[in-house]
Every structure is written in structure tokens, then in C-alpha cells.
């Protein structure tokens, strides 16, 4: 078991290095650099001498290979560098944004699971009835709706409804406060985006629950259980659901890893100061150091979530053993 974990983590090393190389190359393929952006984005003067000084200061004039090796070496020594944009350590930059993103991701996951598993199960049990059709429609609509559009619409709706009802538009607060500091303020900020993200997430999960349930319900042992006259309830809970959960768990895990990507757009809509928005800022500012750090973070989250999913899988299904 521990051997397996170590092995999996070692396996992630080439992935990390590959991701590092890819983001490194990609960022340097983008024309221009952070110096012309920071010196020129105001629309005024871009003094060539200042650009040169800035490039020198940020080490952008070093040979590519030197920059890349520096980058790798700094990660080996667990020094992730400082943001080229703000001058703050990237750990600092990321730590400031992580709580919002994590909170939304977790809340979205909870919302998704709470909606998806019961509805997916019902849909499978009532296959091809109008109930099933409605649930499926709702689920697929969740995947089909652009999440930013849903976000915009829900925000506008909140503003308009409160305006019509009270004569004064209400909008969620703009600056994030941690839950333990001010739970109400925190939730009023986070709830809307969490629901927006969670809906899409629940849609994916619901579909998977339904098809996994359908598959399990057709297995011989369920038929046997049914023919023995066991209560439907027991069959569903004890036999079917437990087995159907396996692929659902995988999906939840994988989707969780992808959630950071989904947050990119949602955080823009709701002006949340999270990882996704930071990602877009870093790419657009061509802040190579920060972008690299964020990619590494996402890759690590991806690797770890996949590992956790596999371990969970084994825990749920004792037949799976690691060798």
C-alpha cells in the first residue's frame, strides 16, 4: 500500500517536469513580455531603456536554458520564486487566493453530491418514465449551459429581484472574508458562485450515477435479490448504490481536479479573488514565475486527487488490491 503510494508519487515526477517544460515554453512563446506590459499598459510612454532595465532585473535576458534550469532547481530546493508582477513570493500570492477557490470547490462538490446521487438514482430506478426524462434534461442542461452566462444571469436576477422587491438593489459583498470571521458575509459571497459551479458539476455526476446504477441494476445478483422479493429500498441502498458508487467516486474526484479550470471563468464573473482569476491575470500579465507556479500547483492537485480517488476506490471495492 505505502509502496504503491510512493510509486504513484514517483510516477508524477515526469509529469511535473513535463508540465514545467510545457508551461515554460508556452509562456515564452507568447510575444512580448511582462516588462512592456507593466511599463506600457497605461497607454503612455514605453521607454526602451526602462524596458531593458526591467528585463535585466527580472532575468529575462538570461539564456533560455539557464532560465529553465534555474526554474527546475528552484523547485527542487522548494523555492518557488517571487511574482514578477507584484514582487511578492508566489507562495504568498497563492496562499491569499487559495481559500476562496477551495471553499467554492468544496461547496460545489457537496452541492453536486447532494443533488446528483439521489436524483441519479431515482432517474435510473424510474428509467424511461417522465421523471427520468425530466431529471436527464435538467442534468444535461447543466452541462450545456455556459457557466459564466449562468453566473451573469443569476447575479442580474438577484440585483433585479431585490430592486423590485425593496427598491434598492442588493448585491453580494465584493471582498472575500473567511468563514470563521464572518459566516454570513462569507456565505453571501460564496453561495452564488458555488451553486453555479455546483450545478454543472452535479449534472455530470448525475449522469454518471444514473448510468452506473442502470448497469448495476442489470447485474445478475440484483435480479436475484429482486426475485427473492427483497424490498426495493434495501436492494437500492445496500446492493446497487454501493456498487454503482465506484465510477461515481472516480468522476467526482476527476471533476474536482478539473474544478480549478472551471473556476477560471466563474471567478471572473463574480470578481472572486481566487486561483482561477489569478491564473488568467498571470497568463495575461505574462508573469512567467507565477504562471509556472500555478501550473505546478494544478498538476499537483491533479496528481494527488487521482491518487486519492484510486485509494478510495480500493477502499470501496475490497477486490482491488495494489501490487
Amino acid at each position: 500500500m505505502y509502496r504503491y503510494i510512493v510509486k504513484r508519487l514517483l510516477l508524477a515526477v515526469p509529469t511535473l517536469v513535463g508540465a514545467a517544460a510545457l508551461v515554460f515554453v508556452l509562456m515564452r512563446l507568447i510575444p512580448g513580455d511582462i516588462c512592456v506590459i507593466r511599463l506600457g499598459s497605461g497607454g503612455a510612454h514605453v521607454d526602451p531603456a526602462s524596458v531593458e532595465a526591467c528585463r535585466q532585473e527580472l532575468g529575462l535576458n538570461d539564456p533560455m536554458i539557464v532560465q529553465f534550469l534555474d526554474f527546475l532547481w528552484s523547485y527542487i530546493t522548494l523555492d518557488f520564486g517571487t511574482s514578477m508582477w507584484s514582487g511578492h513570493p508566489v507562495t504568498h500570492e497563492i496562499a491569499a487566493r487559495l481559500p476562496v477557490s477551495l471553499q467554492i470547490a468544496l461547496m460545489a462538490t457537496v452541492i453536486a453530491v447532494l443533488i446528483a446521487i439521489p436524483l441519479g438514482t431515482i432517474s435510473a430506478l424510474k428509467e424511461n418514465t417522465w421523471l427520468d426524462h425530466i431529471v436527464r434534461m435538467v442534468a444535461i442542461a447543466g452541462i450545456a449551459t455556459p457557466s459564466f452566462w449562468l453566473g451573469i444571469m443569476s447575479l442580474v436576477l438577484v440585483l433585479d429581484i431585490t430592486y423590485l422587491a425593496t427598491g434598492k438593489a442588493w448585491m453580494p459583498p465584493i471582498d472575500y472574508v473567511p468563514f470563521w470571521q464572518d459566516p454570513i458575509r462569507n456565505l453571501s459571497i460564496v453561495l452564488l458562485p458555488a451553486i453555479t459551479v455546483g450545478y454543472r458539476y452535479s449534472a455530470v455526476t448525475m449522469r454518471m450515477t444514473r448510468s452506473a446504477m442502470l448497469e448495476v441494476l442489470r447485474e445478475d445478483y440484483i435480479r436475484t435479490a429482486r426475485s427473492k422479493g427483497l424490498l426495493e429500498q434495501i436492494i437500492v441502498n445496500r446492493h446497487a448504490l454501493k456498487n454503482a458508487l465506484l465510477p461515481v467516486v472516480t468522476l467526482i474526484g476527476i471533476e474536482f481536479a478539473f474544478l480549478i479550470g472551471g473556476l477560471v471563468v466563474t471567478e471572473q464573473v463574480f470578481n472572486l479573488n481566487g486561483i482561477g482569476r489569478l491564473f488568467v491575470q498571470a497568463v495575461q500579465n505574462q508573469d512567467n514565475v507565477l504562471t509556472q507556479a500555478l501550473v505546478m500547483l494544478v498538476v499537483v492537485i491533479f496528481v494527488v486527487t487521482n491518487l486519492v480517488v484510486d485509494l478510495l476506490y480500493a477502499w470501496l471495492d475490497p477486490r482491488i488490491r495494489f501490487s
Partner: protein
Amino acid sequence: MTIVAPNRAAVAGLVEELPERKRSLAGVALNFCRRQPLGTFGLAIVVIMFAAGISAEWIAPYDPEENDFSAMMEAPSWAHVLGTDQLGRDIFSRLVYGARTALIVGFSAAFMGGAIGLVLGVSSAYFGGWFDLLFQRVLDVLMAFPLIILALAVVAVFGTGVFNVILAITIPLIPRCGRVVRASALAVREIPYVDAARALGFGHARIVLRHMVPNVVAPFLIMLSAFVGQAILAEASLSYLGLGVQEPVPAWGLMLQGGAEEYATTAPWIAVFPGLAIMLTVLGISLFGDSLRDAIDPKLRDR
């Protein structure tokens, strides 16, 4: 070698009658419609969108790129059934032409990403060894990048425009396809007809393309339907971040950019209709793809 009349063994082999051919295509379609009402609904939407995209010139009442400063941000009326946008362009016309853009972007990205992923996935499974190892690591790397971030970087490198947007969406789709295909191709690789093909001295290209690819194509086709939807949504997201298809090209995602948020309260029709168009189209494609899977998957077919 010369061959003469049928021999003893040959005669012995002719024991069974030739079996009947399978049902006709129309019969299959009819059966699909009966069993999959949702899928049929989805198919209908897709067909309508296709029709709109193909015959945009005849359907659209206005030039979708023509600015009309005398009719800016007009609410839906008989002259402009879905209203006009901030530059006075007819929203209905832009939606109709936008269907073309959406389908071109969606299908080209999905098919290109799918096709490259298919060939790479199958090749990886076929050749095995270091190629496969390398391929898997590359897949891991690409998969770990959120789709929108990878697309964002690609657009930043190459710039916007329909072609570059397609490219930006295609690249992240390749590993998603490659991974699924590789898994099924690994199974196919172990099937003796691949060995038979090798023993017959066929080239790698022929074995991969003619013997392995066609046999992993069924799950792949269903995955493609999901990709088309994903590509359309990715285009919309890229546009939202300002890096999708650019003005004045009529595109749904683009119609949601800027105007959608800016005028969401004062001129909601600008934001609502393109969003609905995206939602309906992706919904249609997904419903159809899902039902197709249900119809094809033998595990789900027996009822």
C-alpha cells in the same frame, strides 16, 4: 499455385445457409426515435441548428455585420424579432450566422482533436514501449492543464481568429481523446487479428489505421458528440475572456462578451438569446450523443 475444382473439404464446409442481412437504416432510425425520445429531441435541435447555419444567407433578414447606428439596442420588435445589439446589428441574424460559426468551431475542433487523439492513442497502444511511456506522460501533462488555461495560452501565442480558436480548443481535446482511445486500443492490440496483420507483413501505418482504428471507433464516435458540445462551450468561455472569435464575425460566445454583462439589465435581450442558443445546441448534441450511447452499448440495450 493453381486451383482446381472444389475438393472434399470444401464441400464439407458448405453446411450453413448465408444468414439474412441486418435491418435497414431507416428501420434502425425509426427504432431509435421510438426508444429514445430525448435523443430524438436532441437530434431535432441539432438538425435545426445545422439548417440555420447552412442556409443563413436566406434566413437572416439583415447583414449580421452591418452596424446601424439608428437602431442601437432596440428591444425585440417586428422589425428586429430578437432586438438589436449595441452596434445596431440584428440579433436574430447574428444568431443564425452564429450557428454556422458555432458548428464550424465545434465540429472542426472536436473532429481534429478527436482524429489526432485517435491516431495517437492507437499508435501508442500499438507500438508500446518507450513511445507509449512517453505518450502517457505527455497525456498526463496536458490533462493536468485546465482546458481553458491551455486554450488561453495557445490563443495568447497565436492570436485570435476562427482558425486559431479552433486550434486552441483542439489541442486540449487531443489528450482527453487519446487517453480513452488508448485504453480501448490496448484491448484491441491483444486481439489476434492484429498479430495476423503483422504476420502478413503489413506496414505500421496500415495496421494502425486499417486494423486498429476502425475497431476503437464506436466508443470514440460517442465521445465526439461530447467534444462538440465542449468545444462550443470552450469557444464561448474564451470569448468571454475576450480571446475567442473576434468582431465582427457573428459568433454566439462573442455576442455574450462585453455586451452581455454591460447591458444585462438595460438591454437583457443582448445577453439572453445567444446564451439560450448555446445552451440549446449543446443540450441537443449531448442528448443525442447520450441516447446514441444507450442505443449502441450492448450492456444497456437488452431492455
